[in-house]
């Protein structure tokens, strides 16, 4: 288990280079309006648009697929839940699984939900795949006026996260050395997991406290106004990215309404 937060994209791609706050904002502005409708058409178009702009972020499809893999799990979950429990069983009957009737209506609602999950989550995945966490924290402080205490503090904590993987391995081995294993007993497995997780948490807290003291000693969060060694610039191109994202999202919604697909959530 190795955790990494390094960006995986070509950093010189035209959209990957944009200000991190602009990228995150654009992802929100693009995906939030899509939540307004329940139909499969709108998220499908949005997904198509997302895949078209992908090359401009310098992210290869394979890399994206790997990062998006956990979404598949969510999609399968939604599909199963809908097939079993959907109240609306309209449409033509396709086949029956015992008492469960699978109809075109059920499949279309489930399909729409799955598409929505992907359409809403992908922009976020792309933004984080193309953004260095340090740059994001810098931009949050400098351009979005987020408090440095929060942004830089979170960044420092993030740096400790990959250490947790090694720590977990050491703790597990040490437990085996002490004569503790779960064998095939599922209850013992859960208890062992919980006790290892607790030890990991205790260790992480102690390390966090020490890091906080060291940061304090180096003047973090003193009354002196901070300066920025790395400048993040928010340019006209960043504003354009924000505006365009919102416009495209609204255009897709308008098209879906004009073509009669639009189904409001409430």
């Amino acid at each position, binding site marked *: 288990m190795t955790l990494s*937060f390094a960006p995986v994209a070509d950093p010189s791609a035209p959209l990957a280079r944009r200000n991190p706050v602009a990228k995150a904002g654009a992802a929100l502005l693009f995906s939030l309006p899509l939540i307004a409708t329940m139909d499969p058409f709108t998220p499908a178009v949005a997904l198509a648009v997302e895949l078209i702009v992908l090359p401009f972020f310098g992210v290869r499809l394979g890399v994206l697929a790997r990062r998006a893999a956990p979404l598949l799990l969510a999609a399968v979950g939604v599909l199963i839940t809908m097939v079993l429990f959907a109240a609306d069983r309209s449409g033509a009957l396709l086949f029956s699984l015992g008492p469960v009737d699978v109809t075109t209506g059920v499949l279309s609602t489930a399909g729409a939900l799955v598409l929505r999950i992907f359409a809403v989550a992908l922009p976020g995945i792309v933004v984080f795949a193309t953004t*260095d*966490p*340090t740059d994001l924290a810098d931009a949050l402080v400098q351009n979005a006026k987020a408090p440095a205490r929060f942004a*830089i503090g979170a*960044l*420092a904590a993030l*740096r*400790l996260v*990959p*250490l947790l993987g090694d*720590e977990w391995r*050491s*703790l597990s*081995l*040490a*437990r*085996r*050395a*002490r*004569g*503790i*294993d779960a*064998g095939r007993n599922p209850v013992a497995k859960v208890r062992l997991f919980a*006790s290892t997780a607790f*030890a990991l948490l*205790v*260790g992480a807290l102690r*390390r966090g406290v*020490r*890091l906080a*003291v*060291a*940061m*304090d*000693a*180096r*003047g*973090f*969060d*003193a009354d*002196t*106004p*901070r*300066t*920025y*060694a*790395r*400048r993040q610039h928010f340019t006209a191109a960043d504003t354009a990215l924000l505006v365009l994202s919102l416009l495209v999202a609204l255009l897709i919604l308008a098209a879906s309404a004009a073509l009669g697909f639009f189904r409001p959530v409430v």
Partner: protein
Amino acid sequence: MSDVQLRGFGWRHAGRRAWAVRGLDLEVRHGERVLLLGPSGAGKSTLLAALAGLLPEDSGESEGTIRIDGLEPRKARERVGILFQDPQTQIVMARSGDDVAFGPENRGVPAGEIWPRVSDVLDRVGFPYPINRPTSALSGGEAQRLALAGVLALRPGLLLLDEPTANLDPPGAALIREAVGRATGPETTLIIVEHRVAEALPLVDRVVVLEPGGGVRADGAPEVIFAAYGDKLADEGVWVPGFHAPPLKAGSKARNDVVRATCAAVTGRLRPVSIAVGAGEVLAVTGPNGAGKSTLALLLGGLLAPTSGRVEAFGDRRPPHRWRATTLAGRIGSVFQNPEHQFVTSRVRDELALGPRRARRSPAEVDRIVTELLGRLRLDRLADANPYTLSGGEARRLSVATALATAPRLLVLDEPTFGQDRRTWRELVDLLAGLRDEGHGIVAVTHDDAFVRTLADRTVPLGSPEPDPLPRRSRP
């Protein structure tokens, strides 16, 4: 350029009955270089934290006064820099240069001045990489040099070093001392706390010995202090210069093998290695960082499967990594580098009882084992304490005791003497020699030359890893 003045200074942590420091009168003039000594618990680290203004008023009770250039420590924080033991909890940023820039940013140094300053301090501490080197790719010694650069970038008049090399291997520690010597000029006042006195002496011109009960026991030039107080300090656990331990080698030849590795290797971590450990011998595994010493310890301890080759032990047809944990603990005791990783309960007594209980010993037997180990490793007073609250030496003794509780015939120890004071060191060496003479097989992965000279019957040096290329640093 900072003056330090303490008048009857004392500090008691909230919730403690004893004062960590008390009745301290001390004056350090600017440009002086002071080594602060005293047995464990004399309050050395507390004193440094107080000087750095890192003791919040609500976290304890203070008495007397403490002044830096006539100011209270909280108001003088801009003049003081402090370097701690563990580089991992001092580095804030993901890229090396950004980390050095962190302090100057906080202090509001104009952006244009920051990068020249970063470049300058990295040169002074001998940091060998470009400034965009990921901090996660640094070795312990490199990371600690970076942390030192981060402190020096603030141009402190008073530099405090709190056991800066305790977490490093000898080459890494030497690099840090060299960096401190090179990077601090006569304009910096220096106060060092350090166990390994001989190594720190070239950096200082004055030694101050704290008395555990309070006050200063001795103060003066190093030669004078060690001539007058050397023996007493050595008894209290301080590594005074000129220390030699008499060798404690096995009386008889090692008997049949307890564990044997044949061409065992782990891809990317350990090249093929063949060794055997017999009953009644101490085998030391030495070698540079990255040679795979700890990996070999895990293989021999039955905690890791070799990717090629074989490990056999105790005449069992199954390799140790396939044994059930209770079987393993009854045969091989592993002691990890970080004792805290091994603690699973919230009382010292329960910690010792855990192994025997899991091996289904009767309650009376468990009691007998626990009582015996508490006495043998001087932990009686701490029987009801939480293992996480123990000092470094106590935690080390407890981790060895837990491994002994299931009476394994083979002990595998990873850096058992790391960062220990002289007294704990002595106790560990005596204990291990005793176990060896009772017929235990002992494997110790170690950087500690004194340990090898004193105790090892055989030494296996592991080869060096691929050399790491050292690119020249360029400006961003």
